[in-house]
């Protein structure tokens, strides 16, 4: 089975996000008053695996070993099976 995978990586709640605060200040310069600005990184790829659970387990390993730093990051995995 072929899966479309998306990993969304964000900073843990309460972690300082200098990029987000810079964006929020820049938006304010343009007159847009917004709050709670955050940034999320998305990594996308395709993956062939026997079934969805194996694919999910493999992507979770990828997150733990390389894609995220567990000290500061939370992540969400989205797996969609490609239509044949």
């Amino acid at each position, binding site marked *: 089975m072929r899966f479309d995978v998306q990993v969304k990586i964000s900073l843990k709640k309460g972690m*300082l996000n*200098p990029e987000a605060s810079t964006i929020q200040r820049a938006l304010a310069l343009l007159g847009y008053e917004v709050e709670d600005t955050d940034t999320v990184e998305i990594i996308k790829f395709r993956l062939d695996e026997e079934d969805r659970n194996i694919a999910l387990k493999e992507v979770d390993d990828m997150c733990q070993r*390389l*894609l995220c*730093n567990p*000290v500061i990051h939370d992540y969400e995995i989205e797996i969609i099976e490609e239509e044949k």
Partner: protein
Amino acid sequence: MKVGIIRFPGSNCDRDVYQALELAGGQPEYIWWNQKDLSQIDAVVIPGGFSYGDYLRAGAIAAITPVIEGIKSLVKDEKPVLGICNGAQILAEVGLVPGVFTVNINSKFICQWTDLKVETTRTPFTSMYKKGEIIKMPIAHAEGRYYVDYIQELKDNDQIVLKFASENPNGSMEAITGVCDQTGLICAVMPHPERASLTILGSDDGLKFFKGIVNY
């Protein structure tokens, strides 16, 4: 004392570290990222730079290269390992030192001289300083803000090596900019001792880091 200098694609302080180690009386030797066997080496320095373009996170990709296995074997043999700047980020990504060095509080690349306080002298690299001594070395990084979950543990185990002595330019937790593992043999510092290894560079306060390795 044969000291290995690890080179990744994107390392750029390797030659400065080479010279500083020579000045300190050591025998430096370059080691490429795909070399696994470091058994002929007595100590290792991971120099600064932008390994793998800082892609993903600074140090994240270097942290999974074969040379890291060699470094882990050296650690088992109780040989000293020093990571400077990008080298410090790599050691944190591997998990050989606690915490992370992440994006500076002002989102900018900061390049400036800093006053630093030596917090412990139990590491080989700081063994020639006095505890509490103020030294002058430059920083040059965009991802140097130190963060750790359990700061009390670091204090209890005497794992804080360097702190910013006056201003805290990158917003590091408690102004920490150098930490070590529990043994003190693995040390990660954001400031550049090799850029402060000759008075003509503006300071030679950093040279003792390398003398400390050679005398270990």
